[in-house]
């Protein structure tokens, strides 16, 4: 029972072993996905827990039209967005859409002028950079840059305006660029010191 079809069949029959196999097979990648949407590992595991509960309870709805992993990943992203929106209710947030006109972000093209073509930055470091972003920036950046959603789709999913989505994406890129520059500078200093 190693193929996705067999695992799905086992899950539909309520077999504990199938549940476990599904989890063991997909959990590491899905935790990587959830980590991108959360500040830390603890939050990411909570999100993934919610996601797998949905996977197991809704597995009968999987139409086999796309890949099983893609379907699970979409559920995880939804769980992450649910978690983000749930946290919004408990926190004070300025209405970004009202402020966006007043904020000067600069030309998007300028943001990548100084980025070298080949960077030697580890995946863990890049993950930490994403996690360090403010919640809104992080979610928009993930959806746009990594999941390939359009600003229109993001606006619909998050219940914000397209301009807000664009603004948050630009701010996220700016913040990431700053962190990348700091990392490159740190690596250069270390190399010279050695």
């Amino acid at each position, binding site marked *: 029972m190693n193929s996705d079809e067999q695992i799905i069949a086992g899950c539909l029959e309520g077999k*504990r072993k199938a*549940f*476990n196999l599904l*989890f*063991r097979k997909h*959990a*590491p*990648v899905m*935790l*990587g*996905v959830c*980590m*991108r949407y959360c500040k830390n*590992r*603890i939050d990411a*595991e*909570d999100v*993934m*827990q*919610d996601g*797998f*509960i*949905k996977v*197991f*309870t*809704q597995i009968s709805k999987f139409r086999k039209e796309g890949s099983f992993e893609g379907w699970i990943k979409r559920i995880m992203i939804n769980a992450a967005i*649910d978690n983000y929106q*749930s946290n919004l209710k408990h926190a004070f947030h300025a209405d970004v859409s009202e402020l966006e006109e007043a904020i000067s972000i600069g030309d*998007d093209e300028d*943001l*990548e002028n100084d*980025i070298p073509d080949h*960077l030697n*930055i580890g*995946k863990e470091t*890049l*993950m930490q950079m*994403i996690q360090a972003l403010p919640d809104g920036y992080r979610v928009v*950046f993930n959806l*746009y*840059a*990594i999941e*390939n959603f*359009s600003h229109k789709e993001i606006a619909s999913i998050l219940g914000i305006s397209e301009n807000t989505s664009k603004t948050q994406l630009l701010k996220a*890129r700016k913040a*990431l*660029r700053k962190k*990348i520059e700091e990392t490159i500078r740190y690596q250069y200093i270390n190399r010279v010191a050695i």
Partner: protein
Amino acid sequence: MNTKNKIDDLFKEAMAGYRIEPSFSLWRRIERRFFPPSKFSPSGLITSIFLLIIAGSMPWILIPANKYEDKEPNIPAENARRGYMIKPATLTQSLSDQTNTKQIAQVFSVEPVIYEASPASASSLTDAADTKDLYLASANDPADDPSILPLISAMNDQKTIREKKNTEPVDKYTPEWIHRMTSRKTGLMNTTVTSEDLPAHRENHITSTFSPYYERSYFKATEFSFGASFIPTVVFYDPNPSNQMLGGEAIVRIDMSGFRISSGIGYSRMQDIGSYRIDYKSYDSVGYFLDVVSFSVDPKNPDNIVLLLREEAIYDSVPHYTITEKNNSYSYIDIPVSLGYTFLNKGRISLTVQAGMKFSWLINKNEPVVDFSVSNGELIGIERQVPARAGTNWRFTAGLDMGYLLTDRLSLHLEPVFEQYISPVYVKQTGYKPRKPIVTGMKAGIFFKL
């Protein structure tokens, strides 16, 4: 269509296929959402409690406390000797009507002792063995010491040893001998409960055998619990024999994503044999002389004078000392703090490794007054042979907590524990080796999740 961007590409490429292994507890939390443990049965609880009590008491039962013979003397090993001591236990006096002489009946007991061999004591023993009136300790094996052998045989046959004498008994004890104290120490512990929580927005209700509380709290990442533990332990005073210690703890615990922080307060009590040297002097017989009661001229041979002699004992004040023991007890307040990680959490069973520190504070000591009861003896002074207990102690603690979930809130725990004293258990005393013993035992407890 998204516009291509270097930063986007950099992160998209790096995050593709990014994998992180989830923690052990995550699958358990999900699994128990769909496959909750079977219903709790009272017979299982009774069996579990019984097994925990048995297991927790095993070190207490299997490792005996110090025996007198096993105690290490507080003397250099090269000077330590084993011997036997005859102690006068009771003394009765009566006056004979016919002879008008005092009859003294002395009852003795014989005990093995460890003493320090020194030139003074060796000569004293030799003298004692050669002197009829001195029923003292023997430095030799009984087989090599004819004077003591009958007494040893009588003791082995559980007979009362009696000796009647016509003179005042010589109240001398064995030469220098010291045996060390025994000590008992405490150990403490903590245990753990883990549980799960329910999603805030569940879509399908899965029937659970657990309570509504369990359903509500199923997926909480952080859990608070409290409990109590019973801790029988054994203290190893290397190279000395072991001692037993008994304690209990009340613990508060926080479990968070597999990690655990626990602390609380405990009470422990131990027994410790206190050894005291009693110096005294007594008016003893140091020899005798022949007293001329009367004399007369021999009628058959007038050149001879017949003397009627009588033995008279000579007494003098002789210094002695003896060692006596008292069963002291000490009570401690313990404050343990530990960190742990739950590496196995399956069904009702959980395993957690824990390590931390424990602070002990001596709050009460019961040291009975040393009584002096040697007939004709005058007390010179009493000296403590065993150092006093230190007021505070630090210990390193480690253990493997094995938890068994009885209900959604209640769990039983069994934990083999190891402790290492960081500070000595006794105050510093010249000539006495600092003791930093190790402690092993089994902690048994019950915890309740808040």
